[in-house]
């Protein structure tokens, strides 16, 4: 492994950011195409705030929905990758500062990383809602409400 000069670190971080944004944008766009094929048409009323369904609020739910090719899940995965891009830059620079034995920056990067991860990985009560309260796919035949029922109403109505 070569020496991590500041110049090399700078270039590597730049490349990481560029690729992260590209991958995230392509993923979100692919989800957008799935959405246009399956669910376009009726759009929820964004004038009233109801919040996204619980499954789209945390990493675990988003990955599960994206794996089942739910358009909302795939789009949200792209957004999650986008949020993860600056976080990946922090992790990468942490490794580089460790290799450089630059302790002041190891410490500051660790503080930043823990602040950001605390917000991202915080346990959410919404994440434990049973999957059946969330309609995994939207299809033209059941396009009455492509955004699933709001969180509070969901558990009661599904029973």
């Amino acid at each position, binding site marked *: 492994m070569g020496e991590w000069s*500041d*110049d090399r670190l*700078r*270039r590597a971080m*730049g490349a990481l*950011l*560029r690729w*992260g*944004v590209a991958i*995230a*944008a392509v993923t*979100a*766009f692919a*989800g*957008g195409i799935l*959405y*246009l094929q399956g669910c*376009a*048409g009726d*759009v929820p009323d*964004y*004038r*009233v*705030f*109801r*919040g*996204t*369904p*619980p499954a*789209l*609020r*945390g990493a675990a739910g988003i990955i599960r929905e994206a794996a089942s090719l739910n358009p*909302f899940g795939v*789009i*949200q995965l*792209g*957004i*999650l990758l*986008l*949020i*993860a*891009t*600056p*976080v990946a*830059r*922090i992790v990468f*620079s942490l490794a580089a500062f460790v290799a450089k034995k630059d302790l*002041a*920056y190891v410490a*500051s*990067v660790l503080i*930043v990383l823990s*602040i*950001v*991860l605390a*917000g991202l990985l*915080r346990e959410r009560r*919404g994440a434990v809602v049973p999957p059946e309260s969330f309609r995994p796919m939207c299809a033209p035949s059941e396009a009455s409400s*492509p*955004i699933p029922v709001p969180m509070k109403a969901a558990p009661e109505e599904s029973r």
Partner: protein
Amino acid sequence: MDLLGLPFLLALGGAAAGLVGSLTGLGGGIIVVPFLALGLGVDLRYAIGASLVTVIATSSSAAAEYLKKGFANFRVGMFMEIGTTLGAVAGAYLAIVVPTSAIAVLFGVVLLYSAFMTRRPRAERPGPESPDPLAERLRMDSAYPEKEGPKPYRVRNVAGGFLLMSAAGALSGLLGIGSGAFKVLAMDHVMRLPFKVATATSTFMIGVTAAASAGIYLGRGYIDPVLAMPVMLGVLAGSTLGSKVLPRIGTKALRRAFSLVILAIGARLIFDGLTGRI
């Protein structure tokens, strides 16, 4: 709403916002929020969620460019990120207790201030006379590329810059914007970084700052995929186009015209907030 209506409208509006944001130097987020909230009547919380995502996309790709060219001082950036991320988390929690009408008024004020800041002439200030021991210890003094070769500079008042950065982070978390104007203020005025370095380093920090509050907003359900995706892609396209076009056209008249638009939007946000329409 017809079949393909909303996503395309959002993407087009996003592209316009990205273009205006990059031509005025204001950035995308500060235009996306009024576009969604005033233009389309979207709830302010959804607008802020979509804007944060957009801010991460545009600032990360701009930062990649600045890093390649060597303008961004990543040591300053990474140390100051402690302040901006703490501020961003605080701002995201403040957003729960602050009523949306107050957020709209604050947004209008910040928009007007940012527009004022980008219109000011950018005189390079003389560098600091005496070195800041903290900056020396953190090896922040660096150099940036000029036509004549690398130009060295020193950093001063790290503590003062840190405080102002934390406030900028809080505004970013509360309003869903990059708050680049405040970050540049901290580094340009307080820490006396060269203006180009201040701008580049501010952009470098915006992505991490926005990611800190975006994680919280995602968990609260503010980030709606159908709203955020077309806006984000549109703004990304618009601002990329803007940065390509910017060096080639005389932007003076354009800037003036956009400034009037920004003034009107800011006044409208303040008015709607004060009269309780938002």
